[in-house]
């Protein structure tokens, strides 16, 4: 049976239940429209099946409330929302700052950095913050939720992650990505009150910029008045810092990502709590776009076998600090291979942190520690 009435519109065909009497009549009389409607209904059923199988997380709006409360108090954002923001700045640094320092440096994984007879359980470094350590290395393996980092010294660190771990990834951007409202970290040279940017890191625009301290040549804040070759950074204190860019300026963009997006072979930085057997339970993991980071010497890696006075984890000896014999000077220092470590030097020397920054200088949130480390490396 056919009908001479106009065929049903797409709106009518895709509606879940045509209600207009003439539509229902037409469907009953028009095989073409009936077939079309059945086809769309099958598509709809498939899509509704997908939608119905997606349940929101049981934590509900917990992270939103924390973010609102933190904003209300004028504090930095807490994890998920805020950790991404601040730590994002970090990846910028991991992808930008760190890499400039580290590309040509240091021994390769499994290489020569470890003195004979010294078993390096982990290249973990105390941060000065209770329960937080930092490590870096090249991601060599992903085992389920665990990451294996080859440490510069030739050891390995197993970084364990969980659903609450913030995973960040830096990618290479361009100057065209810099727009008003973007959150940025800038590193460059100060000339007449203007920063000539060497590296610019863009952090997620949906999140507030980290409140790193204002440093000459390294402003952190929000982009304003972006134009070709220049923009202003409005810092948390409201100060406007003019920034100029050039074709030589490198731009790095940081994204929150998932574990599966991390790439083996890339330099990786993690902050978290040290565990037994050279492991680190990560709060934040960051990977940059051009990332070999073995040249970024951490101030006080821990070596197995040398107990520390205050064990952190019951039953597991605290690892002693080891000196970095060639503390990096500005710029060139980070491109020098880390020194080999004579065993005799292990328990005694007190190394200086990179760039003169203490790892807890910006606070003891994991992302603050990462930022401190990387800003120090960049300085």
């Amino acid at each position, binding site marked *: 049976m056919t009908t001479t009435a106009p065929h049903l519109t797409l709106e009518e065909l895709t509606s879940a239940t045509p209600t207009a009497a003439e539509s229902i009549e037409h469907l009953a009389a028009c095989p073409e429209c009936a077939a079309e409607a059945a086809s769309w209904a099958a598509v709809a059923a*498939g899509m509704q099946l997908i939608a119905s199988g997606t349940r929101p997380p049981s934590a509900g*709006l917990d992270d939103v409330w924390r973010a609102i409360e933190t904003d209300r108090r004028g504090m930095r954002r807490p994890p998920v929302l805020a950790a991404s923001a601040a730590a994002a700045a970090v990846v910028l640094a991991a992808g930008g700052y760190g890499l400039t320092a580290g590309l040509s440096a240091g021994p390769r994984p499994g290489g020569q950095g470890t003195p004979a007879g010294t078993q390096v359980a982990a290249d973990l470094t105390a941060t000065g913050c209770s329960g937080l350590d930092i490590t870096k290395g090249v991601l060599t393996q992903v085992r389920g939720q665990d990451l294996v980092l080859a440490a510069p010294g030739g050891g390995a660190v197993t970084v364990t992650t969980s659903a609450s771990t913030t995973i960040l990834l830096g990618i290479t951007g361009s100057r065209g990505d810099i727009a008003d409202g973007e959150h940025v970290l800038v590193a460059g040279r100060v000339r007449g009150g203007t920063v000539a940017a060497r590296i610019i890191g863009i952090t997620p625009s*949906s999140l507030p910029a980290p409140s790193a301290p204002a440093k000459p040549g390294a402003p952190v804040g929000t982009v304003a008045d972006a134009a070709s070759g220049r923009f202003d950074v409005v810092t948390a204190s409201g100060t406007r810092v003019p920034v100029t860019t050039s074709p030589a300026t490198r731009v790095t963009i940081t994204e929150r990502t998932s574990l599966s997006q991390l790439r083996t072979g890339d330099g990786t930085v993690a902050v978290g709590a040290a565990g037994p057997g050279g492991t680190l339970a990560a709060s934040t993991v960051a990977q940059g776009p051009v990332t070999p980071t073995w040249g970024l010497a951490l101030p006080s890696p821990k070596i197995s076998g040398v107990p520390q006075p205050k064990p952190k984890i019951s039953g597991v000896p605290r690892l002693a600090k080891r000196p970095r014999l060639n503390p990096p000077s500005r710029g060139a220092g980070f491109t020098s291979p880390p020194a080999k470590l004579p065993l005799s030097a292990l328990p005694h020397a007190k190394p200086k942190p990179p760039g003169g920054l203490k790892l807890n200088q910006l606070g003891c949130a994991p992302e603050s520690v990462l930022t401190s480390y990387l800003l120090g490396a960049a300085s």
Partner: protein
Amino acid sequence: VDADDAELVRKIAAGDHGALEALYRRHGQAVLAQLVLVIGDRTLSEEILQDTMLAAWKGAAGFRGEATVRSWLIAIARRKARDRRRRRRLRSVDEACLAESPAPEPGPEQLALGRSEAAAVAAVVGGLSDTHREVLGLVFGAGMTLPEAAKVLQVPLGTVKSRLYAARAALAQAMSQKGYVR
């Protein structure tokens, strides 16, 4: 705009936490489903959902009621997701190209869709392009009207229609290749 939804948004603008919770319970699943459908990453989608709800909290006073609340939320979520995707330089279909594609005539494969099981459709949707998954999700997953979808996508109504036809054709082709329809 649903009166209850509009009232919730008004209360949110006044600082009522319970209203935001209620809005989340009412629309969170649809927003998250759309995000997962388009992004394909559950963890990232959940974070964008949180960002979206935070933006709703902050922006409730600016809601003018010109769209449904669900459309408003999904539009926020889409902006958040697009921002990240833009930066990640993910491969995506040229939307302009799609928009100019004529609506294909339904072939036997598409008409055979009408005999397909929902599970079979769901199984192949993930293989469609971002643009196709998005429009199908908005119209059939989130239950938007075509004009609402056009508003969220910021494209003309005709573009939504052409995308829907193209998405269905792609779906039918994929199902045929996998032996779901003959």
